[in-house]
Protein backbone atom coordinates (compact mmCIF):
# COMPACT_ATOMS: atom_id res chain seq x y z
CA UNK A 1 0.00 0.00 0.00
CA UNK A 2 2.85 2.39 0.75
CA UNK A 3 4.22 1.95 -2.77
CA UNK A 4 1.04 3.33 -4.33
CA UNK A 5 2.08 5.85 -6.92
CA UNK A 6 5.76 5.84 -6.00
CA UNK A 7 8.13 5.98 -8.96
CA UNK A 8 11.91 5.68 -9.06
CA UNK A 9 13.17 8.62 -11.05
CA UNK A 10 16.56 9.64 -12.30
CA UNK A 11 16.81 13.39 -12.84
CA UNK A 12 19.64 14.57 -15.07
CA UNK A 13 20.32 18.28 -15.58
CA UNK A 14 20.76 18.95 -19.28
CA UNK A 15 21.18 22.33 -20.98
CA UNK A 16 19.58 24.17 -18.09
CA UNK A 17 16.58 21.84 -17.88
CA UNK A 18 15.93 18.69 -15.90
CA UNK A 19 15.52 15.49 -17.88
CA UNK A 20 13.49 12.95 -15.91
CA UNK A 21 13.93 9.24 -16.51
CA UNK A 22 11.49 6.78 -14.96
CA UNK A 23 13.97 4.00 -14.31
CA UNK A 24 11.40 1.32 -13.44
CA UNK A 25 9.57 1.85 -16.69
CA UNK A 26 12.72 1.79 -18.79
CA UNK A 27 13.94 -1.42 -17.18
CA UNK A 28 10.54 -3.09 -17.50
CA UNK A 29 10.23 -2.05 -21.15
CA UNK A 30 13.61 -3.64 -21.88
CA UNK A 31 12.52 -6.79 -20.06
CA UNK A 32 9.42 -6.91 -22.27
CA UNK A 33 11.55 -6.44 -25.37
CA UNK A 34 13.96 -9.16 -24.20
CA UNK A 35 11.04 -11.51 -23.56
CA UNK A 36 9.77 -10.85 -27.07
CA UNK A 37 13.19 -11.54 -28.57
CA UNK A 38 13.49 -14.79 -26.63
CA UNK A 39 9.99 -15.78 -27.73
CA UNK A 40 10.80 -14.97 -31.33
CA UNK A 41 14.00 -16.98 -31.15
CA UNK A 42 12.27 -20.01 -29.61
CA UNK A 43 9.40 -19.85 -32.07
CA UNK A 44 11.52 -19.63 -35.19
CA UNK A 45 14.31 -22.04 -34.23
CA UNK A 46 14.02 -25.68 -35.38
CA UNK A 47 10.96 -25.03 -37.48
CA UNK A 48 9.44 -28.29 -38.60
CA UNK A 49 6.32 -29.77 -40.02
CA UNK A 50 5.40 -31.05 -36.58
CA UNK A 51 5.61 -27.76 -34.69
CA UNK A 52 6.70 -27.45 -31.09
CA UNK A 53 4.67 -25.42 -28.59
CA UNK A 54 6.46 -22.13 -29.24
CA UNK A 55 6.15 -22.48 -32.99
CA UNK A 56 2.41 -23.12 -32.64
CA UNK A 57 1.96 -19.99 -30.53
CA UNK A 58 4.08 -17.90 -32.88
CA UNK A 59 2.23 -19.11 -35.96
CA UNK A 60 -1.10 -18.47 -34.27
CA UNK A 61 -0.18 -14.87 -33.44
CA UNK A 62 1.33 -14.12 -36.80
CA UNK A 63 -1.33 -15.71 -38.98
CA UNK A 64 -4.26 -14.23 -37.05
CA UNK A 65 -2.83 -10.72 -36.97
CA UNK A 66 -1.70 -10.83 -40.61
CA UNK A 67 -5.20 -11.89 -41.64
CA UNK A 68 -6.67 -9.07 -39.56
CA UNK A 69 -4.42 -6.46 -41.14
CA UNK A 70 -5.14 -7.63 -44.66
CA UNK A 71 -8.82 -7.59 -43.85
CA UNK A 72 -8.78 -3.95 -42.73
CA UNK A 73 -6.38 -2.60 -45.36
CA UNK A 74 -6.20 -4.50 -48.62
CA UNK A 75 -3.87 -7.32 -49.60
CA UNK A 76 -1.21 -5.08 -51.14
CA UNK A 77 -1.06 -2.37 -48.48
CA UNK A 78 -1.57 -4.88 -45.71
CA UNK A 79 1.83 -6.36 -46.52
CA UNK A 80 3.56 -3.13 -45.54
CA UNK A 81 1.82 -2.71 -42.21
CA UNK A 82 1.32 -6.24 -40.90
CA UNK A 83 4.71 -6.60 -39.16
CA UNK A 84 4.02 -3.33 -37.33
CA UNK A 85 0.58 -4.46 -36.16
CA UNK A 86 1.86 -7.87 -35.10
CA UNK A 87 4.80 -6.41 -33.17
CA UNK A 88 2.60 -3.78 -31.51
CA UNK A 89 0.10 -6.36 -30.27
CA UNK A 90 2.75 -8.73 -28.93
CA UNK A 91 4.67 -5.92 -27.23
CA UNK A 92 1.51 -4.64 -25.51
CA UNK A 93 0.52 -8.14 -24.47
CA UNK A 94 3.91 -8.80 -22.89
CA UNK A 95 3.81 -5.40 -21.18
CA UNK A 96 0.28 -5.82 -19.81
CA UNK A 97 0.90 -9.32 -18.48
CA UNK A 98 4.07 -8.34 -16.68
CA UNK A 99 2.12 -7.30 -13.59
CA UNK A 100 1.51 -10.98 -12.86
CA UNK A 101 5.05 -11.43 -11.61
CA UNK A 102 5.96 -10.16 -8.18
CA UNK A 103 8.16 -7.05 -8.06
CA UNK A 104 7.46 -6.28 -11.71
CA UNK A 105 5.34 -3.44 -13.03
CA UNK A 106 3.54 -3.02 -16.31
CA UNK A 107 5.37 -0.40 -18.39
CA UNK A 108 1.94 0.59 -19.73
CA UNK A 109 1.03 1.72 -16.20
CA UNK A 110 3.14 4.81 -16.86
CA UNK A 111 1.40 7.29 -19.16
CA UNK A 112 4.61 7.84 -21.16
CA UNK A 113 4.55 4.37 -22.76
CA UNK A 114 0.97 4.44 -24.13
CA UNK A 115 1.34 8.09 -25.12
CA UNK A 116 4.47 7.43 -27.17
CA UNK A 117 2.89 4.38 -28.79
CA UNK A 118 -0.22 6.43 -29.54
CA UNK A 119 1.87 9.23 -31.08
CA UNK A 120 3.71 6.63 -33.13
CA UNK A 121 0.43 5.30 -34.49
CA UNK A 122 -0.78 8.84 -35.19
CA UNK A 123 2.36 9.76 -37.14
CA UNK A 124 2.30 6.51 -39.11
CA UNK A 125 -1.40 6.89 -39.95
CA UNK A 126 -0.99 10.44 -41.23
CA UNK A 127 2.20 9.62 -43.11
CA UNK A 128 0.33 6.76 -44.79
CA UNK A 129 -2.53 9.11 -45.62
CA UNK A 130 -0.27 11.73 -47.21
CA UNK A 131 1.63 9.08 -49.13
CA UNK A 132 -1.56 7.54 -50.42
CA UNK A 133 -3.57 10.60 -51.36
CA UNK A 134 -1.01 13.34 -51.85
CA UNK A 135 -0.78 16.34 -49.55
CA UNK A 136 -3.48 18.40 -51.27
CA UNK A 137 -6.18 15.73 -51.03
CA UNK A 138 -5.09 14.94 -47.48
CA UNK A 139 -5.34 18.56 -46.37
CA UNK A 140 -8.69 18.99 -48.08
CA UNK A 141 -10.26 16.54 -45.64
CA UNK A 142 -9.75 19.04 -42.82
CA UNK A 143 -11.88 21.67 -44.52
CA UNK A 144 -14.98 19.46 -44.62
CA UNK A 145 -17.89 20.28 -44.39
CA UNK A 146 -17.04 24.01 -44.37
CA UNK A 147 -13.65 25.71 -44.16
CA UNK A 148 -14.07 27.19 -40.69
CA UNK A 149 -14.47 23.73 -39.18
CA UNK A 150 -10.72 23.23 -39.69
CA UNK A 151 -9.60 23.98 -36.10
CA UNK A 152 -12.21 21.62 -34.68
CA UNK A 153 -11.27 18.90 -37.16
CA UNK A 154 -7.64 19.24 -36.14
CA UNK A 155 -8.56 19.06 -32.43
CA UNK A 156 -10.72 16.04 -33.19
CA UNK A 157 -7.77 14.37 -34.89
CA UNK A 158 -5.39 15.19 -32.04
CA UNK A 159 -7.85 13.99 -29.42
CA UNK A 160 -7.62 10.51 -30.95
CA UNK A 161 -4.08 10.31 -29.60
CA UNK A 162 -5.35 11.27 -26.14
CA UNK A 163 -8.21 8.79 -26.20
CA UNK A 164 -6.18 5.82 -27.45
CA UNK A 165 -3.35 6.32 -24.96
CA UNK A 166 -5.43 7.24 -21.91
CA UNK A 167 -7.69 4.23 -22.52
CA UNK A 168 -4.77 1.84 -22.16
CA UNK A 169 -3.22 3.80 -19.29
CA UNK A 170 -6.50 4.09 -17.35
CA UNK A 171 -7.37 0.44 -17.68
CA UNK A 172 -3.97 -0.94 -16.70
CA UNK A 173 -3.41 1.61 -13.93
CA UNK A 174 -6.96 1.14 -12.59
CA UNK A 175 -6.63 -2.65 -12.71
CA UNK A 176 -3.32 -2.69 -10.90
CA UNK A 177 -4.60 -0.32 -8.20
CA UNK A 178 -7.71 -2.44 -7.69
CA UNK A 179 -5.63 -5.61 -7.38
CA UNK A 180 -3.31 -3.91 -4.86
CA UNK A 181 -6.01 -2.29 -2.72
CA UNK A 182 -8.47 -5.19 -2.65
CA UNK A 183 -5.68 -7.68 -1.89
CA UNK A 184 -4.64 -5.43 0.97
CA UNK A 185 -8.24 -5.18 2.26
CA UNK A 186 -8.72 -8.97 2.36
CA UNK A 187 -5.22 -9.57 3.80
CA UNK A 188 -4.21 -11.30 0.53
CA UNK A 189 -6.54 -14.23 1.24
CA UNK A 190 -8.39 -16.15 -1.50
CA UNK A 191 -9.21 -13.25 -3.83
CA UNK A 192 -5.86 -12.13 -5.40
CA UNK A 193 -5.52 -14.95 -8.00
CA UNK A 194 -9.02 -14.26 -9.34
CA UNK A 195 -8.42 -10.51 -9.37
CA UNK A 196 -5.18 -11.03 -11.28
CA UNK A 197 -6.86 -13.40 -13.71
CA UNK A 198 -9.55 -10.83 -14.49
CA UNK A 199 -7.75 -7.50 -14.37
CA UNK A 200 -4.30 -8.49 -15.60
CA UNK A 201 -4.80 -11.42 -17.98
CA UNK A 202 -8.30 -10.75 -19.33
CA UNK A 203 -8.44 -6.93 -19.36
CA UNK A 204 -4.77 -6.74 -20.36
CA UNK A 205 -5.33 -8.94 -23.41
CA UNK A 206 -8.51 -7.08 -24.42
CA UNK A 207 -6.89 -3.67 -24.10
CA UNK A 208 -3.80 -4.75 -26.05
CA UNK A 209 -6.12 -5.94 -28.82
CA UNK A 210 -8.21 -2.76 -28.71
CA UNK A 211 -5.12 -0.56 -28.93
CA UNK A 212 -3.79 -2.54 -31.89
CA UNK A 213 -7.16 -2.55 -33.64
CA UNK A 214 -7.58 1.19 -33.21
CA UNK A 215 -4.10 1.89 -34.59
CA UNK A 216 -5.00 -0.28 -37.57
CA UNK A 217 -8.37 1.47 -37.96
CA UNK A 218 -6.78 4.92 -37.87
CA UNK A 219 -4.37 3.86 -40.60
CA UNK A 220 -7.17 2.39 -42.71
CA UNK A 221 -9.34 5.53 -42.29
CA UNK A 222 -6.49 7.70 -43.54
CA UNK A 223 -5.63 5.37 -46.41
CA UNK A 224 -9.12 4.74 -47.76
Amino acid at each position, binding site marked *: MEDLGRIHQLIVPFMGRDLTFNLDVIVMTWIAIAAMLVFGFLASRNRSRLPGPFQVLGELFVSQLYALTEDALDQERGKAYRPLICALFMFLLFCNWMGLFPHMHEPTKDLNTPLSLGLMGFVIAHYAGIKQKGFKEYAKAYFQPIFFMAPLNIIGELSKVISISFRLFGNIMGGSIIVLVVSHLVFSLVLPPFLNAFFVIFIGAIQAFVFTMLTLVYIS*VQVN
Partner: protein
Amino acid sequence: MAIEGIDLIKAASFLGAGLAMGLGAIGPGVGEGMVGAKACEAIGKNPGEAGLLTRTMLVGQAVSESTGIYSLVIALLLLFVV
Protein backbone atom coordinates in the same frame (compact mmCIF):
# COMPACT_ATOMS: atom_id res chain seq x y z
CA MET B 1 -12.85 30.31 4.69
CA ALA B 2 -12.27 33.63 3.01
CA ILE B 3 -14.13 33.96 -0.28
CA GLU B 4 -13.06 36.74 -2.57
CA GLY B 5 -14.17 37.70 -6.05
CA ILE B 6 -11.37 36.11 -8.05
CA ASP B 7 -11.56 32.97 -5.92
CA LEU B 8 -15.26 32.67 -6.61
CA ILE B 9 -14.70 33.09 -10.35
CA LYS B 10 -12.01 30.41 -10.36
CA ALA B 11 -14.22 28.04 -8.36
CA ALA B 12 -17.12 28.60 -10.74
CA SER B 13 -14.96 27.98 -13.78
CA PHE B 14 -13.62 24.71 -12.32
CA LEU B 15 -17.14 23.53 -11.52
CA GLY B 16 -18.23 24.58 -14.98
CA ALA B 17 -15.37 22.68 -16.60
CA GLY B 18 -16.18 19.49 -14.68
CA LEU B 19 -19.89 19.67 -15.42
CA ALA B 20 -19.37 20.63 -19.08
CA MET B 21 -17.21 17.60 -19.78
CA GLY B 22 -19.12 15.26 -17.46
CA LEU B 23 -22.63 16.00 -18.72
CA GLY B 24 -21.38 16.56 -22.25
CA ALA B 25 -20.01 13.03 -22.35
CA ILE B 26 -23.38 11.36 -21.73
CA GLY B 27 -24.98 12.10 -25.08
CA PRO B 28 -22.12 11.13 -27.39
CA GLY B 29 -21.42 8.03 -25.29
CA VAL B 30 -24.96 6.70 -25.69
CA GLY B 31 -25.21 7.84 -29.29
CA GLU B 32 -21.99 6.22 -30.41
CA GLY B 33 -23.03 3.06 -28.60
CA MET B 34 -26.25 3.03 -30.66
CA VAL B 35 -24.21 3.45 -33.84
CA GLY B 36 -22.05 0.50 -32.80
CA ALA B 37 -25.13 -1.58 -31.99
CA LYS B 38 -26.69 -0.94 -35.38
CA ALA B 39 -23.40 -1.68 -37.12
CA CYS B 40 -23.18 -5.06 -35.35
CA GLU B 41 -26.77 -5.77 -36.37
CA ALA B 42 -26.08 -4.87 -39.99
CA ILE B 43 -22.95 -7.03 -40.08
CA GLY B 44 -24.92 -9.91 -38.60
CA LYS B 45 -27.47 -9.56 -41.40
CA ASN B 46 -25.05 -8.90 -44.23
CA PRO B 47 -21.53 -10.08 -43.39
CA GLY B 48 -20.32 -9.58 -46.95
CA GLU B 49 -20.23 -5.81 -46.51
CA ALA B 50 -18.36 -5.90 -43.18
CA GLY B 51 -15.55 -3.60 -44.34
CA LEU B 52 -17.88 -0.93 -45.70
CA LEU B 53 -20.12 -1.15 -42.62
CA THR B 54 -17.18 -0.78 -40.25
CA ARG B 55 -16.01 2.30 -42.13
CA THR B 56 -19.50 3.80 -42.10
CA MET B 57 -19.75 3.09 -38.38
CA LEU B 58 -16.45 4.87 -37.72
CA VAL B 59 -17.46 7.93 -39.73
CA GLY B 60 -20.84 8.09 -37.97
CA GLN B 61 -19.21 7.77 -34.58
CA ALA B 62 -16.62 10.41 -35.43
CA VAL B 63 -19.39 12.85 -36.37
CA SER B 64 -21.45 12.15 -33.25
CA GLU B 65 -18.34 12.47 -31.16
CA SER B 66 -17.84 16.05 -32.28
CA THR B 67 -20.20 17.31 -29.54
CA GLY B 68 -18.03 15.50 -27.01
CA ILE B 69 -14.99 17.23 -28.47
CA TYR B 70 -16.76 20.60 -28.20
CA SER B 71 -17.30 19.86 -24.50
CA LEU B 72 -13.62 18.99 -24.16
CA VAL B 73 -12.61 22.26 -25.82
CA ILE B 74 -14.95 24.29 -23.58
CA ALA B 75 -13.70 22.49 -20.48
CA LEU B 76 -10.06 23.11 -21.40
CA LEU B 77 -10.82 26.78 -22.13
CA LEU B 78 -12.56 27.12 -18.75
CA LEU B 79 -9.64 25.45 -16.99
CA PHE B 80 -6.70 27.17 -18.56
CA VAL B 81 -7.87 30.38 -20.24
CA VAL B 82 -10.55 31.88 -17.97
